[in-house]
């Protein structure tokens, strides 16, 4: 497969997952501001923006709900907003059209076509629901129409790495929100994990277990450990072990983080949640770089210097 195509596939996986996760995160955030009038809206919004590494307005100007939604949901230029990442996913799909199935392309293209209407027309909650549904359609088509060759590996690799990264950010927002923040139950709901969690722990739920579920559960597909494990499997699938003494960089970054979460006592992780989650995000970024270096060598962008006579 061409490196350029592989890179596009990798990024389709990442962008669609990013839109999905951002929608989930913002849904919790907006709901919390609505339900709890005592929340400091400005502080809560600044906190969220900082987690997403987006600039907040200078202090006298409040960073309200509207600003957050514009920046993280509706901005069609920035790849870290929902609209932006959906557009970017469609751009990448356009470059890889001959590889991906028509159904997958149409799902991405239809999403992009409907985007303007969705951004303008509906209440935030309905927009988030729509985004989640579109992401589910894409992910379902990836599962049902893409052969399990390298194309699938790259799509799922991107999705898994993005999921680990975004779940880490989601957990960071909870850790930073302090005791008045939304409950862990709300976070479980936003990840679609509430029922799975209840079935696992049969109602004897505690905050610690809820956090542990999103961090460490081996069976729930949105937990960080599961997502990292899936990414590692994809990397293994892309390149079965040749050098028996060492691993490639990307797998090393992901595996190190996964095991450090898995083998550390849960209480130690929770006491230090923001920095632990930062580790996860940094590992994902480093692995992403390593994957780019390994699989998508683009060479330096060629620039015509002109012939010096």
């Amino acid at each position, binding site marked *: 497969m061409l490196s*350029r195509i592989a*890179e*596009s596939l990798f*990024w389709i996986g*990442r962008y669609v997952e*990013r839109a999905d996760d951002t929608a989930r995160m913002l849904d919790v955030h907006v*709901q919390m501001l*609505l*339900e*709890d*009038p*005592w*929340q*400091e809206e400005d*502080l*809560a919004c*600044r*906190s*969220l*923006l*900082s*987690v*997403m*590494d987006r600039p907040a307005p200078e202090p006298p100007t409040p960073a309200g709900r509207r600003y957050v939604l514009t920046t993280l949901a509706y901005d069609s230029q920035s*790849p*870290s907003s929902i609209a932006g990442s959906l557009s*970017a996913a469609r*751009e*990448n799909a356009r470059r890889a059209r001959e590889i991906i199935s028509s159904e997958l392309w149409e799902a991405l293209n239809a999403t992009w076509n409907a985007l303007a209407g969705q951004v303008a027309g509906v209440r935030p*909650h309905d927009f988030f629901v729509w985004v989640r549904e579109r992401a589910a359609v894409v992910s379902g088509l990836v599962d049902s129409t893409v052969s399990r060759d390298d194309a699938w590996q790259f799509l799922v690799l991107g999705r898994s790495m993005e999921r680990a*990264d975004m779940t880490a950010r989601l957990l*960071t927002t909870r850790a*930073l*929100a*302090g*005791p*008045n*923040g939304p409950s862990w139950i709300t976070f479980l709901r936003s990840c679609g994990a509430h*029922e799975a*969690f*209840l*079935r*696992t*722990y*049969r*109602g004897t*739920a505690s905050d610690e277990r809820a956090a542990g579920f999103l961090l460490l559960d081996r069976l729930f597909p949105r937990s960080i450990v599961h997502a990292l494990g899936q990414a590692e499997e994809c990397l293994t699938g892309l390149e079965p072990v040749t050098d028996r003494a060492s691993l490639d960089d990307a797998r090393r970054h992901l595996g190190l983080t996964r095991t450090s979460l898995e083998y550390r006592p849960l209480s130690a992780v929770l006491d230090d949640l*923001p*920095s632990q989650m*930062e580790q996860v*995000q*940094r590992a994902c*970024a480093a692995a*992403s770089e390593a994957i*780019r270096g390994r699989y998508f060598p*683009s060479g330096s*962008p060629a620039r015509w210097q002109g012939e010096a006579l």
Partner: protein
Amino acid sequence: MDLFADYPAGAAWDEMVDGQQARGPYRQVHQVLTAMSIGDVRVRADSLARSYVRQGVTFDVAGEERPFPIDVVPRVIGTDEWAQVAPGVSQRVRALEAFLADVYGPQRAIDDGVVPRSVVVSSTHFHRAACGIDLANGVRVHVAGIDIVRDAAGGWRVLEDNVRVPSGVSYVLSNRQAMTQSFPELFAALRIAPVADYPRRLLAALQAAAPSGVDDPTVVVLTPGVGNSAYFEHTLLARLMGVELVEGPDLFCAAGRVWMRTTQGRRRVDVVYRRVDDDFLDPVVFRQDSLLGCPGLMTCARQGTVTVANAVGNGVADDKLVYTYVPDLIRYYLGEEPILANVDTWRLEEPDGLAEVLDRLGELVVKPVDGSGGKGIVVGPFATRAQLDALRARLLDDPRGWIAQPVVQLSTVPTLVAEGLRPRHVDLRPFAVNAGDQVHVLPGGLTRVALPEGELVVNSSQGGGSKDTWVLGDFWVGESRSAEPVAQAVGPREVASEHAVPIAANPHDGSTMVMQQQQQQQGECEEEPC
């Protein structure tokens, strides 16, 4: 136009509007509604209905699945009003609990002449099979739904008790969820007591009722199956408690215990929260043609290896003739005065009562003693001559089977109907969970509303709707949230910029140079078609 401009002053006590003004608890709701146009209100009502169809919140009427109707205007109960209702409900549950323990045990109340023996043993739901069963924590009424109404003066009265398998709590949970989405501004402005912890409390109460010696009890919800009208509720409760939802054939009894069939082999069941009527529970003891139960369940319950919740035979306590004795039972067992009064009721067994009722049949409500869901009720003023004659014959034939009550002018709450907001009659079913050491009353409950004008029967099986019921907790505002400085110190923090991890993007996205060149290339091709 003001939504309330043409709101008619009904004959009954209206909970929201008093003349031109809104009553205390409804002030904000009234304000928000007044600021809206009828179109806005309808948009919200539509979004509520759509969300119900999507979630599958349905009620089965004669085999047809319909979205459960939820009205857009909430029912609001003030802090002080609730401070009367909640203890009243809890008191009633405690008295009924004591009565059941007595009836199926020493029968002191009968010996002491509080309740006639004939009333107890002639109840269709008095089951001898339930006598002498010891319960692990002594609880028989794990869940109760006490139907209460407000009369023409605004006072609360108990209409009936439900201690068999009271249903409707799922609509309390889903109504609340739907309303938070539709009226975020009201939830922001008011402190409304949350209802979401009901499944947790129910599970705790069921686990507390497990046979002694079981340290991690397995609880299941037993449903008659998808054909049942309350199936939605059964799935919702099982889902939110994280327990198995079983049908009769999933269970079997062996070695004196109840088991369920799983892919991992049999698994012991300790507590059965059954939503199946007594008669169908165990074909060995009750109806032999029942396919919904589990043969041998009663034997296991008697041996104390499984707890059935609510207990078998509870129906004797919500028999409508026993209802007339409940105030006496409260005084007898608890030594307290009833907090919530009954509706005046004639016992037709007493010759004087029967004579008076037959005389005034046209102005009374007559109910069968063992009915539920509004079945068989005859409202005198709305009945035809022929209906009344038929009723008269039935009363003479079986006076034990009926009670009569004056027509209670149930309070009204504004409700959205085709013409706009109109007063419609409501009742309230608060739910109580008895964990043994404490009776917890869910703040709010199911408000049912009779949608046709003047209709007084509110049951959902009779085409009634529902309203989300808000119990205000103003006290909460003043107390724990007043400590602002503390709250600020621990409020949301930011990630320091050196710890923020940027969100990456495909470096090849939007590389404008390349795009321009590609477009240019394309342009040149078009100039020279070949």
